[in-house]
């Protein structure tokens, strides 16, 4: 810890660097990780280069445990597939890997999140008469419903951290049981397919986790921000009773790996 602090003084890091590093630290050695494009790619590769060399990466488009020479810019990229154990397609990744229960951890993103970890990537406003249409679900809800742990990477803004999302694209801890639509704990909806759920949310200001009831609480605050800053950028009253302290900043080794090895072309880290 003292060493980290010392090395911090000697170099600078960007908010993106801290996000990548904080996300990488969520990977446990041996995890089978389902990853999307962008920052999550940096996170899994950084984890593989540091504390989790036995973790494995599955990209939705079909590559399983690839060892890319060059950073992919899409999960459909040929770069993902270099030296992969298996090359396949969507039936294999979404059903043969995800539905059958191999996936330990997934990194996902969203436009809005609520205090139960429900995420919206579909519309702002009423679905039948929306104010704004977003990208749509993609595999976000599938991955989030079947990985044992999911980590969301979000921008910290009041309008994005909401009491209730406008549309539940991906299921958090309190979701709707159809056809009736009553709100119940996720376990009740998934039954024997319940494997876990949203474990952490990492924003540009803080790391959040979920209590036994599935309600979000503030875990650590990134260097340079206060608990009050985070609350001011959150649209619901945040449980701050369990704050552990400051998010560990990146080390020099992590920064070097990110800029000189993983993203040496400056694609996600310009």
């Amino acid at each position, binding site marked *: 810890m003292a060493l980290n602090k010392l090395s911090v003084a000697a170099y600078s890091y960007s908010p993106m660097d801290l996000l990548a590093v904080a996300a990488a630290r969520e990977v446990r050695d041996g995890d089978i990780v389902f990853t999307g*494009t962008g920052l999550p790619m940096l996170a899994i590769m950084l984890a593989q280069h540091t504390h989790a060399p036995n973790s494995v990466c599955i990209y*939705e*488009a*079909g*590559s399983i445990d690839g060892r890319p*020479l*060059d950073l992919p*810019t*899409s999960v*459909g*990229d*040929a770069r993902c*597939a*270099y030296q992969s154990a298996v*090359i*396949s*397609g*969507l*039936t294999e990744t*979404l*059903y043969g890997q995800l*539905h059958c229960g191999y996936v330990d951890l997934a990194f996902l993103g969203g436009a809005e999140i609520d205090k139960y970890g429900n995420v919206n990537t*579909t*519309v702002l406003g009423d*679905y*039948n008469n*929306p*104010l*704004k*249409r*977003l*990208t*749509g*679900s*993609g*595999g976000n*809800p*599938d991955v989030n*419903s*079947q990985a044992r742990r999911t980590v969301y990477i979000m921008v910290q803004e009041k309008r994005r951290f909401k009491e209730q999302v406008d549309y*539940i*694209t*991906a*299921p958090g801890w309190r*979701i*709707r049981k*159809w*056809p009736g*639509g009553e709100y119940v704990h996720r376990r009740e*909806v*998934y*039954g*024997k*397919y319940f494997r876990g759920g949203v474990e952490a949310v990492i924003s540009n200001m803080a790391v959040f986790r979920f209590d036994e009831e599935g309600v979000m609480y503030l875990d650590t605050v990134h260097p340079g921000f206060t608990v009050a800053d985070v609350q001011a950028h959150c649209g619901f009253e945040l449980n701050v009773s369990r704050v552990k302290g400051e998010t560990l900043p990146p080390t020099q080794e992590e920064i070097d790996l990110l800029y000189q090895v993983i*993203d*040496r*072309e*400056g694609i*996600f880290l*310009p």
Partner: protein
Amino acid sequence: MGKPQNITLKEAAGLIQDGQQITFGGFTIWRRPMAFVYELIRQGKRNLHLLEVNGGTHSEILIGAGCVSIWESCWSGHELYGKLGEMVADRHVNGGMIVEDYSHGHMVARILAGAYGLPFFPSAQSLGTDLLNPEFDSLGRAGLRDGSHPKIPRKKYEFAPDPFYDRGELLLLPAANPDWAIFYASQVGEEGTVRVNVQTYADSEVIKAADKVIVLAEEIVPESYLRLEPEKNIAAGYAINYLIKLPWAAHPTGSQGFYDVDADFIRTFYRASKSQETFDRWADEWIFDIPDHERYLQKLGIGRLENIRANPVLGYSTRQKRGTR
């Protein structure tokens, strides 16, 4: 049965009737049959029902040109080169197209059921979400689930208990069997055997699910070559109805082993797609003012194509500058 029929791009696009249900091979910004999409637009197709596992640049262009009246899928955009599917978004907000949202896993389940000749496929994915909110069943709200439309199921989904092992309620997703699959293949043999390079996406399922299949081949190669490594092939020739030989047919989307995604081209399109007016100007320049694929390639120019041409060993371009370093 037997070999696919060789056909021109214009003839093939002419086979698609207004109002039919179509789907595409490929994934987001990879291996999309773009030359065919441009030709559908030139021929002024209307009221197409586009059902696809996921959308991408091709969907945005087809929708922006006013060819699509129903879009069933899960996602539209251009990945890193344009965050939002602006045309899907515009139609959803302002009307003009029915948008039916499923998840990616749901769409794969639907195509999988269609491919295997099953009426539905069960899944435990994306339960508890608003994708299953009965109020958000767009085709139902439009009165199109009355059983009179052969390609539209009577229900968006159904729940049923597992009758065998008591695993609880599962979601049943209705099969999709589009009238047409339009498909881009890396290599096709003289007898129609189909190979795609690297990730297979939902390609073999899309071919099997559709009533009829049109393939645009980057290369036609000897059958004997493809049959040396049959494990790399995804369909036999009898599954393909029509074949078009058309190099660079997936541009600006990527084709592993042949060319990378043309990032600048897609970024430029994405900016144009932010209003109908700028879209229309883009479509004039890149679709309507160009009579055919050959002229499209001439307009792109050799420099641009060389820049994205794949390194044959790695399968992707090592010339394209991708980042700031």
